[in-house]
């Protein structure tokens, strides 16, 4: 059971109050993009063993989307942060680096 803190309303709650939304920071390729980019956007996923950035929605709370950085090997949640960003903010990167010095960084 994950414990997540919603950065929008500040509530800390168990996983059952949230809904997972898959990999975060995907770059959208819409109409007009080539087949490879569109396929990659739709289906290819990093699926890493380790640090993973993902989307969550506080469905049984404020209803807002937010993002989380979490380890898929230990389920440790490094940070949650607002969704209005194209890449993880510096303080989230720092928080991950302090726990996972060997982590290669956000790519």
């Amino acid at each position, binding site marked *: 059971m994950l414990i997540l803190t919603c950065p929008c309303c500040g509530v800390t709650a168990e996983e059952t109050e949230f809904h*997972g939304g898959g990999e975060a920071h995907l770059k959208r390729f819409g109409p007009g993009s080539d*087949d490879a980019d569109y396929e990659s956007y739709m289906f290819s*996923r990093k699926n890493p*063993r380790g640090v993973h950035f993902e989307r969550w929605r506080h469905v049984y709370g404020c209803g807002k989307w937010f993002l989380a950085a979490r380890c898929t090997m230990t389920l440790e949640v490094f940070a949650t942060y607002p969704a209005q960003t194209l890449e993880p903010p510096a303080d989230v990167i720092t928080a991950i680096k302090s726990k996972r010095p060997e982590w290669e960084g956000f790519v």
Partner: protein
Amino acid sequence: MKRYSAFAIAREAFRQHKGWDEAWSSPEPRAAYDVVIVGAGGHGLATAYYLGKRYGITNVAIIEKGWLGGGNTGRNTTIIRSNYLQDPSAAIYEKARSLYETLSQDLNYNIMFSPRGVMMLAQTEHEKRGYLRTERANALQGVETRFIQPAEVKKLVPIINIDGPRYPVLGALWQPRGGTARHDAVAWGYARACSDMGMHVIEQCAVTGVESAGGQVTAVNTTKGTISCKKLGIVVAGHSGALADMAGFRLPVESVALQALVSEPIKPCMDVVVMANTVHGYMSQSDKGEMVIGGGADQFNNYTQRGSWHHIEETVRALVETFPMISRLKMLRQWGGIVDMTGDRSPIISKTPLGNCFINCGWGTGGFKSIPGSGWAMAELIAKGEPGPLAEEFSMSRFREGRFIDESVAAGVAH
């Protein structure tokens, strides 16, 4: 290899069982093989077995990070069925199911295939219409299934509560030749047969890298040294993404934990497999008497082989309503396996960007039942370099081309 038989048991009984050979040998890896298969679970071993048996390719190593069959092969609910809606799925799962029928004889190893019958309960009108459609699709596909009425459900499963209140049983899709098998024995039987053909089953040997040159794999780096190969097969289920990353390509796959649990053993009370997809729980009784219960998958990417308590609660809560007598049972064990889910919930048996590297993954929550069919199709792909009729629809390119085999919509849930 000494054949197992009733006579062998009698012979050994007279000499304190000292004449049994080890079922498979544990050699050190050679420097090179014709084919290296990564992953000695059911699918990897079946691939190797049919490579040898059907194509005469026996200079093969099957390398395994942990122990044989210790991944998802040993972490499922052992259900075998082939009542799928889409033609390519029905074809490969029915091939697998039909191979299971005679697998004990083929391998000379008792895999305890028990075609006790599998039923999928229809508990909403929508589900009932869906199964009536599947029944007709199965008739066209040559898969024997039948839609049965609530009275027949009750007759087959006396412990079931068909009256609801929340989800009354409106009928069921019944596959009389579905069933269960002993999951470990499937891996062990294939491993023994592979070893007997001269193949190397190498356990405790993790792959750490894939070497390639000119678009072809040349070798794999492992914890037991570098092993060169002419062809590479990747058959590693939940960790397919990590292996693909080493080989330099990305997969349309995400790994999540799927869990199951068993109760304390009780006297025989249910001799069929029952799946209740609306409430998402399924149950059968093992030969030991334990009620084997399958539950849901986590909603997030996960490589820890454990489940979540709230999924157990959801699954058991739903099943108690349909099977009131299990409410007093204690649960003994719970476990999780890492399953590789594709966008359309159908597997990938495919060529890859590397010419002599082939991948078999994405079985998601339906891996065990498909082992023989998957191995059959993957062996053909590796041997010929091109997919045969069973595998061709399952190529990775279907995502780019929009040719989904959409069992996620057909089943509505994990399957």
